[in-house]
């Protein structure tokens, strides 16, 4: 950067900032891993149970999941945070982040799981049941192996989406990677450099996974 005819070499960035961002990156990854684990369990649970419930329960569930999917995540974070605030049990941003992100990803995963269960031909399942397999056997040995292949690429897409969406948790004060970058920017005013590093970090994690999942999808489909 040029100012007063001299070239400034000192930028205000120092090595500590790098570690600060690294810590943010660690938090982003932990948040993603915890949320996607809980979200997957939740999604599996709901996705399978929706095939069992009667239509009224299904309707209510569907409405709730639809709501979760149609409201911006940033609003959900603030809303849940505000709810815990006014109920007198304020929780840590990490807790709220995990709660919201698990339900959010669970809503998407349940839909994908439902599609996966439907992807298994009913005749195959009937054949399994008439051979004497129980409902659970049918689920574990027939539906999971066949359905999971159809579901896996969509699940990976949800994981990548969730990884990117963790950046929104900054609104309730959790310092993850992007927020850490923003803090450094406000001090050093080096947005391109700092944001470049942040963007690169997201990119080098998301890009290989999405490419790999694309290849997997092609292999399964053909």
């Amino acid at each position, binding site marked *: 950067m040029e100012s007063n005819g001299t070239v400034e070499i000192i930028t205000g960035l120092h090595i500590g900032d790098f570690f600060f961002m690294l810590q943010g990156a660690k938090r982003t990854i932990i948040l993603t891993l915890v949320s996607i684990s809980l979200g997957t369990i939740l999604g599996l649970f709901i996705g399978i149970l929706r095939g069992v419930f009667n239509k009224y329960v299904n309707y209510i569930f569907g409405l709730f999941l639809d709501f979760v999917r*149609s*409201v*911006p995540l940033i609003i*959900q974070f*603030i*809303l849940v945070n505000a709810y815990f605030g006014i109920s007198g049990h304020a929780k840590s941003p990490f807790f709220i982040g995990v709660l919201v992100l698990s339900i959010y990803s669970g809503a998407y995963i349940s839909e994908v799981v439902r599609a996966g269960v439907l992807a298994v031909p009913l005749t195959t399942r009937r054949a399994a049941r008439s051979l004497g397999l129980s409902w659970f056997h049918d689920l574990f040995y027939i539906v999971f192996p066949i359905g999971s292949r159809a579901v896996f690429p969509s699940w990976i897409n949800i994981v990548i989406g969730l990884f990117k969406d963790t*950046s929104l948790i900054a609104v309730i004060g959790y310092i993850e990677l*992007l927020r850490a970058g923003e803090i450094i920017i406000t001090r050093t005013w080096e947005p391109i450099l700092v944001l470049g590093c*942040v963007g690169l970090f997201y990119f080098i994690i*998301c890009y290989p996974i999405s490419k790999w999942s694309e290849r997997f999808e092609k292999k399964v489909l053909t």
Partner: protein
Amino acid sequence: MNYTFHWNTVWNVKEALLKGALVTLELTIASMLLGAFLGIFIAFGKNSSRKLFVNIASSWIEVARNTPCLFQIYMIYFGLGQFGINVSSYFSVLIALTFNNAGYLAEIIRGGLKSIPVTQMTTARSLGMKISNVYIYVILPQVFKIVYYPSTNQMMWALLNSSLGMVVGLSSDIAGVTSFEQARTFRAFEFFTAAAILYYAIAKLIMFLSKTLGKKIYGTD
């Protein structure tokens, strides 16, 4: 729970919230239209035989798809500032959303182009049509039908992502108005409940309109 809800505070600013809804809709629709326009070029760029075009198109697509939308907004809002270009928060959201939509839509359009058999092009060419005419009259109408429903899906994402303007200080869309009002009145829960309902309503409206419009133009699915 020791809390008194003040829904009146929300009701009193209903005009501002509804105006915010209009701004949100405007952002969504504008970014979708611009994104679709750019997306067509990017899709053709990725299919072209010129290496330069392919590289530009694929890096656009991959960056748009593999980085958070908030990062893209920051990149416009803070990043361009470093070059002395100061973009207002409204335009930085619009530009970033357009960039994001264009990347996703390009992939959708490319998928649509791929599904049209090459023989159609050769047939039309041998009947004496110009290349541009083949695209306008033969190929693109079919592509639009294929990309219609995936695009409405992308529009939902654009709607959800438009709320991110709040983070860079946009105060005219739904999220912006609510965050401004809750800062004034300290009624975060009530205001963000209202915002959630408004977003849900808009999402349903978009879904409904796109479905009815789709049925009108293309028949059932």
